[in-house]
């Protein structure tokens, strides 16, 4: 086993993920990012909500908090405010983050609190067996969209940027090395970093959308991923149905824990 | 169970009757009595009928609300219409200006003073009417010592507003003796 896996994974096998699930690739990319950053397990907290991707916290060897559906970010804010020195990683899925946790998501972005959110977007509710999520593309099929999904999908990265996150990137499970780099860059950025990972669920999404098997799904993702530099030269029509991958947005803004600490210093120093 | 003083201050939201009740109750505590203060108000912060209540006693005060007051202040016509006929026999009723002329309930001592006008003309702001009313009520009923009232005013107003409110309180004391 790779050294970084030994260091950052718990000996907690077998995992619940189906064969061909993208979650393993994301976990691997995250572990390699941890190794690159040289982070100590004892300095890190992993927090997740509910869903397949949220099960990652039981397999990574940090202080881990597997919370309720959609609620990982408020828990993470509680932890980070009390332990600013800790590195906080939040793992979420498209349903967990963009539907039930959507309000917490925009407010965490708005606060620009220094932590890293990894949203594994497999375009479906996998754990409950394949219902459409706010990131399921219009026209695609799910158990609850048997005639095709009529809901427009969120662009989670645009939502993050508009809400105040200061690092927004999108990776995908085909380009795993790039994903590692995005996680490193995102985590090193001071502020709230959002990394959407285009992933695949061959069981609940692929089969229903005529993409049979994990290799075909990986190929599908590869073919629909466009690096931001390339995308910049393409027109809107060409980009339809494609994912722009890479660092999408980066900005400097006041970080929340720091803002709070400054407030405390001001109150303790001045006002009586 | 009747307590020594069961006071109801009523008026319109924004007139400061709740603030006045807090100052009175705290003054009673400083004086060594027991006191409780409560209020009833609607969801809006301005314009609705407001009432605040204070109970003062030397025994433990259990039920906190005033059912039948023996002191009633009405600072608005709506408050008079709502509360004027619920006061104990021999109770004190303090009314602003011309409120309720010709409709005074029987067996009640009525004291009528232009509270709001005093505040407006002497302090330049009707907002001081609540503190003027406190001086007036305390002079008429001798609820607490003036020293305790001054300490309570000090506790409940910022340094910026204290001097003006002490002045307003004294205006209330004076108004009690002018007929």
């Amino acid at each position, binding site marked *: 086993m790779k050294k970084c896996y030994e260091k950052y994974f718990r000996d*907690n096998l077998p995992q619940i993920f189906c064969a061909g699930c993208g979650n393993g690739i994301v976990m691997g990319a995250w572990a390699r990012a941890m190794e690159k950053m040289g982070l100590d*397990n*004892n300095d890190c*907290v992993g*927090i997740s909500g509910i869903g397949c991707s949220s099960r990652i*916290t*039981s397999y990574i*060897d*940090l*202080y*881990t*908090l*597997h*919370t*309720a559906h959609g*609620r990982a*970010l*408020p*828990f*993470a*804010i*509680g*932890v980070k*405010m*009390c*332990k600013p020195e*800790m590195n906080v990683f939040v793992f979420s899925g498209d349903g967990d983050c963009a539907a039930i946790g959507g*309000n*917490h998501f925009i*407010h965490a972005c708005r606060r620009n609190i220094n932590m890293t959110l990894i949203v594994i977007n497999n375009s479906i509710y996998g754990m409950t067996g394949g219902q459409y999520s706010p990131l399921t593309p219009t026209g695609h099929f799910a158990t609850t969209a048997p005639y095709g999904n009529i809901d427009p999908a969120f662009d989670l990265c645009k939502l993050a940027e508009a809400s105040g996150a200061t690092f927004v990137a999108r990776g995908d499970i085909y380009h795993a090395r790039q994903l590692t780099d995005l996680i490193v860059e995102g985590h090193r950025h001071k502020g709230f970093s959002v990394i959407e990972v285009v992933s695949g669920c061959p069981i609940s999404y692929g089969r229903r959308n005529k993409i049979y098997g994990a290799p075909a799904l990986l190929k599908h993702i590869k073919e629909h991923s466009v690096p931001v530099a390339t995308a910049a030269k393409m027109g809107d029509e060409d980009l339809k149905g494609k994912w722009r991958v890479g660092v999408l947005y980066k900005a400097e803004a006041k970080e929340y824990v720091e803002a*709070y600490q400054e*407030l*405390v210093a001001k*109150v*303790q120093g001045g006002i009586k | *169970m009747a307590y020594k003083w069961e006071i109801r201050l009523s008026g319109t939201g924004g007139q400061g009757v709740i603030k006045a009740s*807090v100052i009175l*109750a*705290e003054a009673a*505590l*400083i*004086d*060594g009595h*027991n*006191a*409780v*203060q*409560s*209020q*009833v*108000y*609607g*969801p809006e912060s301005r314009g609705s009928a407001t009432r605040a209540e204070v109970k003062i006693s030397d025994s433990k*005060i*259990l*039920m*906190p*609300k005033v*059912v039948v007051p023996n002191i009633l202040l009405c600072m608005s016509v709506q408050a008079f219409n709502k509360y004027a006929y619920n006061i104990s026999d021999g109770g004190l009723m303090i009314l602003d200006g011309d409120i309720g002329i010709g409709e005074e309930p029987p067996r009640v001592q009525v004291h009528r003073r232009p509270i709001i006008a005093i505040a407006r003309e002497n302090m330049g702001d009707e907002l001081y009417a609540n503190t003027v009313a406190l001086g007036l009520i305390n002079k008429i009923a001798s609820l607490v010592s003036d020293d305790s009232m001054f300490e309570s005013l000090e*506790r409940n107003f910022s340094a910026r507003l204290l001097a003006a409110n002490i002045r307003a309180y004294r205006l209330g004391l004076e108004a009690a003796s002018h007929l």
Partner: protein
Amino acid sequence: MANVRLVQGNVACAMGALAAGSTFYAGYPITPSTEIAEHMAVALPKIGGIFLQMEDEIASMGAIIGASCTGAKAFTATSGPGFSLMQELIGYAAMTEIPCVIVDVQRPGPSTALPTLSSQGDVQQARWGCHGFHSIIAIAPSSIMEIYYQMINAFNLAEKYRTPVIFLMDEEIGHLRERFELPDNYKPEIINRKKPESDLEVYLPYINDQSNGVPPMANFGDGYRYHISGLTHNEKGFYSSVPSVVDTEIRRMVGKIEDNVDDIAQFEEIGAADCDILVIAYGSVARSAQEAVETMRADGLSVGLLRPIVLWPFPTDYFTKACIGKKAVVVAEMNLGQYAREIRRVVHTDIPLKSLTRVDGEFVYPDDIIDAVKEVL
């Protein structure tokens, strides 16, 4: 009288939390609880603590649980609609055994109802609001000083039993201002969660060998890297669906509170032992009840008062014994008989029980209680 102050119930609640050592508050504004948040917003930065106004009550609960994982004594405050939203994560805190305190300043319901008026309508919700199998501690104070002292007790019980504690105030007591005075040099007794003494590798956050059923709790950052999950879990904290593991875990979790009811329960009694008619009331209504009982006793009637301060866990044996030999029991509350229903369950069927109820936002007055007693005399 320099130490004597007039303090509002909601403010006394915040002061009690600070005295208990709380350094973390997260909440969402809601009438009639908002003064608690406002007081904490002023006080916490002064002591280097954390005050957060979250996007809703669900987030507030999440934040206090997260903070508690790091060892902070954390609480939130709300009223009915917010309390309803919090239920899922109250269940999470119960399931994961994370100490926290939830203040509910009750107002009438359901839904928005009467936001500025008083109620005791959340008594059963405090007990059963979240789904599944759990127990809970709920405290209902009756005076401003009791709010302060019991808030300290609430944090102590949360830490001692690794559990969420519900602090059930009501609008009447929350907005009441009353005498506040602490004894000279008052220092509260503070209980902190038991920390593990085991080696890092063998720490079992949900171990089942403690005599009182409460495992030691490591804080994030202490070096014990462990897993917390709302899934049913084994002693290590990892998901398990093995029936025997699940059964043991749930029964220990419930038992640690229900089996320690004698340690947790608190009452006040006035002539309750040898009276004919027993009046039971709690929270602000207990003040009317005491006034009614004292008035009737002065008139020579054989009436007593029993005031539970801790409503949950329900002390079945205590109530059963307390009601033996009574001619009748009267339970007065600002709801449709939520606690009366519980009392009825444990009182001998031969003893009549009068449930005095009020749901219009008006207070229960002493005369209402006197009338109810006279009905059953």
